[in-house]
């Protein structure tokens, strides 16, 4: 008998569903092929003919893949996006902004408060409460919030955990990790064309040269810090919980 699970799995490898859901669909369709094949064999068809008749059930695998995706995702797409991306993303963004504010102000949090806040305040004490300024002439200069960068791995790890707990795909988890820098990136991308369009009317404008430097301090470095915490967490939970998942 052909390995139907392998065949269906190969054709639906790019089915854009959660891994668990995709496995369920593949298992179900493979079971359907199994039943059809055995029934045809019982009716006296040769293995070759039965296989050929089974394969006739799907003329266009790409079309089936699209139909399955649309059918499975249509009703759930909003709630899945909310719980797997927007909720973890907005939570980590809010937390990262609070931490940024906290590291820039005089510590008012006592040891009785949350560990993450205490840790951030301690880092703030070590590195000071003013941002580090990396200057390449006058301007451009990058403003780097060192205590904030030290706190961001925890935020990234939290984003990965929350998205994974909600059943997020690898892509959703990744986006949840880097979500706190996405608004900065979007802002920079939005204002860049405007700045460049108006820049020719301003003599010796330092603004265009400041854009990549601002991206370094507000997007690239924080993004790396978020990934430093988020990616190991993603790897850890994939190893810890991935193998134990049981389809239901």
């Amino acid at each position, binding site marked *: 008998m052909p390995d139907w699970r392998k065949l269906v799995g190969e054709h639906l490898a790019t089915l854009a569903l959660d891994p668990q859901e995709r496995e*369920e*669909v593949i*298992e*179900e*369709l493979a*079971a*359907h*092929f*199994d*039943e*059809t094949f055995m*029934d045809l064999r019982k009716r006296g068809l040769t293995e070759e003919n039965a296989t050929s008749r089974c394969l*006739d*059930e*799907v*003329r*266009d695998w790409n*079309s*089936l893949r699209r*139909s*399955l995706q*649309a*059918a*499975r995702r*249509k*009703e*759930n797409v909003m709630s899945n996006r909310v719980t797997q991306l927007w909720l973890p993303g907005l939570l980590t963004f809010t937390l990262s902004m609070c931490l940024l504010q906290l590291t820039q102000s005089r510590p008012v949090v006592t040891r009785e408060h949350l560990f993450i806040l205490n840790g951030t305040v301690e880092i703030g004490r070590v590195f000071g409460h003013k941002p580090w300024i990396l200057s390449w002439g006058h301007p451009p200069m990058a403003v780097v919030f060192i205590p904030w960068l030290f706190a961001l791995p925890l935020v990234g790890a939290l984003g990965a955990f929350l998205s994974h707990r909600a059943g997020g795909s690898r892509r959703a988890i990744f986006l949840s990790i880097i979500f706190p820098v996405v608004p900065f990136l979007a802002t920079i991308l939005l204002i860049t064309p405007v700045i460049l369009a108006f820049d020719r009317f301003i003599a010796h404008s330092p603004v265009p040269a400041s854009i990549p430097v601002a991206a370094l301090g507000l997007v690239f470095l924080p993004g790396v810090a978020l990934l430093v915490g988020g990616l190991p967490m993603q790897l850890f939970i994939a190893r810890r919980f991935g193998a134990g998942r049981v*389809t*239901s």
Partner: protein
Amino acid sequence: MIGAGTKRGTAELAILSVLEGGSLHGYEIAHKIERQTRGKLRFTLASLYPLLYRMENKGLVRGAWEVSGSGRRRRCYRLTAAGKKKLMPLRQEWSELFDALRQLAKVADA
């Protein structure tokens, strides 16, 4: 009054009707529909599962994995309360559609 979705609903009606007798897995649904309609209505795998999943999303049927006597895992579908509720008006619409078509055929013959 025949609803706009009646034509599309005939496939749904076929599935809801066979599930009225109890829970079935996908292959059994297709097989039963083919047998009961003497081969006039036939679902392929490609036409059946997207429809089943849509109906599940709409809350008309519910699928759950079951293990058969031979130890094989199969996803069996059963009607939900909403599915049962939808069956009667859908039957009515289908019946009205066929009455209307019959009337048209009579006019054309006359």
